């Protein structure tokens, strides 16, 4: 027993020493993702590393469970609490189930923020959305307008008529339409996020409106189907397809010219911004409270609303100049 006690005491002293040494060195920020091995999140980790390099005294711990379960993320968060990290920035698999564990983390003095996929307000200090409905609505119209110097007719190909996100974005887009003189929205059709139905709806638009200059699809299924329909109709250069899409799926359309540019959030920026915000909260440069403005380095600053939520930026624009870099990421 004596030996065991001695060993334990030695270990305890060693532990204390090592903890102190670590605390004097780096700020440890954990980027917790839904699951490891997903391109989108690997890219976010790249952005986090970029922020760490810029800040100098930051160590990034990029981690997550093997599959997208809340139970798996809880195990990961528990081990991060045990390591005494300074901040946990999480994209949650479950908005509610992580709350008790993250509350425990906050009780032990750890800064907790969510990004991408949020946690209920009581389980985090703030949430960073990649963008906002208003910014998305504006971006999809702007992308079409940028390639229509003389104005003209545009149509929207959406998901289903009841899709909450798409309907809000279309509403926001209609609100900013007066800011783009010469652009007229002639129709909104619904492809139900089915590839074949979206394709047929796009064909219908082309047949119905001979002067159509652009199809805007704020859905990844719709934009892909519409660019295919335009290419098949031999109208590349005449009808431009734009909206929200995934670089990996849209690379072909950008190459063929059916799509000049499209948008979606940039995971690298998101990881970068989450790291910057965590750092500023740890260092006391900012506090997460309604109306607070928190700096995100090169991404500007985020303004929090009443629920401590903020939007990072406009969706990021992808075109021929950068699609090759991003198509392998997500």
């Amino acid at each position, binding site marked *: 027993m004596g030996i065991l006690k001695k060993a334990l005491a030695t270990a305890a002293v060693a532990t204390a020493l090592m903890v102190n040494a670590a605390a004097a060195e780096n700020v440890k920020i954990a980027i917790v993702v839904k699951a*490891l091995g997903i391109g989108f999140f690997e890219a976010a980790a790249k952005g986090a590393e970029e922020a760490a390099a810029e800040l100098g005294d930051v160590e990034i711990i990029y981690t997550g469970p093997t*599959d997208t*379960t*809340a139970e798996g993320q809880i195990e990961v968060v*528990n*081990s991060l609490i*045990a390591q005494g990290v300074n901040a946990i920035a999480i994209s949650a698999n479950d908005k*509610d189930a992580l709350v008790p564990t993250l509350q425990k983390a906050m009780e032990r003095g750890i800064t907790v923020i969510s990004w991408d996929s949020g946690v209920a307000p009581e389980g985090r200090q703030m949430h960073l959305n990649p963008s906002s409905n208003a910014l998305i609505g504006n971006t999809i119209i702007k992308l079409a307008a940028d390639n229509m110097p003389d104005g003209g007719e545009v149509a929207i190909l959406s998901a289903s008529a009841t899709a909450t996100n798409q309907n809000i974005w279309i509403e926001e887009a209609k609100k900013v339409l007066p800011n783009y003189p010469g652009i007229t929205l002639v129709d909104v059709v619904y492809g139900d996020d089915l590839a074949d139905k979206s394709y047929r709806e796009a064909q219908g638009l082309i047949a119905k409106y001979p002067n159509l200059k652009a199809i805007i699809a704020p859905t990844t299924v719709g934009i892909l189907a519409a660019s295919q329909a335009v290419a098949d109709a031999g109208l590349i250069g005449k009808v431009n397809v734009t909206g929200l899409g995934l670089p990996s799926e849209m690379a072909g359309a950008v190459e063929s010219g059916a799509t000049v540019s499209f948008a979606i959030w940039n995971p690298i920026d998101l990881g970068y911004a989450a790291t910057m915000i965590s750092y500023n909260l740890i260092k006391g440069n900012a506090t997460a409270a309604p109306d607070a403005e928190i700096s995100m380095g090169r991404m500007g600053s985020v303004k929090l609303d009443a629920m401590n939520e903020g939007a990072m930026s406009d969706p990021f624009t992808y075109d021929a100049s950068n699609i090759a870099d991003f198509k392998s990421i997500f």
Partner: protein
Amino acid sequence: MTLNNSTGDVTGRIIPDRMRSSFARVLRSWETILIVVAILIFVTNSFLSPYFLNAWNLSDATFNFTEKALIAFAMAMLIIAGEIDLSVASIIALASTAMGLAMTAGAGVPVIVLTGIVTGLVCGVVNGALVAGLGLPSIVVTIGTMSLFRGLAFIILGDQAFNGYPKDLAFFGQGYVWWVISFELVLFAICAVIYWALLHRTTFGRAVYAIGNNATAAQFSGIRVDRVRFLLFLLTGLMSGIAAVCLTSRLGSTRPSIATGWELEIVTMVVLGGVSILGGSGSIPGVVLAAVIMGLVTFGFGLLNVPGIVMSIFLGLLLITVIALPRLLQRK
């Protein structure tokens, strides 16, 4: 829980649940190997991470295995009897959903807890009736009920979640009895003792071994095989219900995807604990050790931020090693 043997005098007919022990045999026993592995992992972890030897951290680590271990005890007895229950994780989902419904209906904490446990029992009755009553193979039945129970949870909840459980419910999954000793850890210890006594110290336990070794022979020795099987399914249902209460309390919410994939982790725990997957042998102390080992490995790797997939590979290798070791030693 004793099973009356209608043949009257049973002396000499009892099947021993372990052989007469000699020192060499104890050294070579599965439990000894597991203890050595556990100590090795504990020491390695202590050296690798400065955060490992901390009472609170170790206490947090126990949550990684306690709920699964509760079910593993009942599962061990079931597998020893030559059956299996793959629906346990789905029972958790359904029981947790039922708790959510009770909460929505305005029930208090005792009723919510009771709802979870009773739902587990009912699921156990369904499995038991199909296997013991109709004589269907348990692996097929429970693959079916695995989809059925979780399917019901999905129908009730869809993509929604139950949250807003009463604050007092949090005790079962987040509460501490004394200092760092959590309620779940105490429950784990109590259940370990109960199941140890049930399997190793009662005639019911002996009946379980007898059935696992030779069900027909057991039947002819007067053991009511189907009744024992039915009760075993009832026990796994009951333990899944109890685990559902703990997990729901720990998560503070219910989603139909709760505890996805746990059935395989629980079976792994049981097999790692030295229970023969073919039935007939195994012990509760082995399962306890396996649970602790799996918890220590998960937590230790977590502290080093080793990706989860490496953890799975390690657990797989550990499982194969521990199973292969006794056979290799025997060959010598």
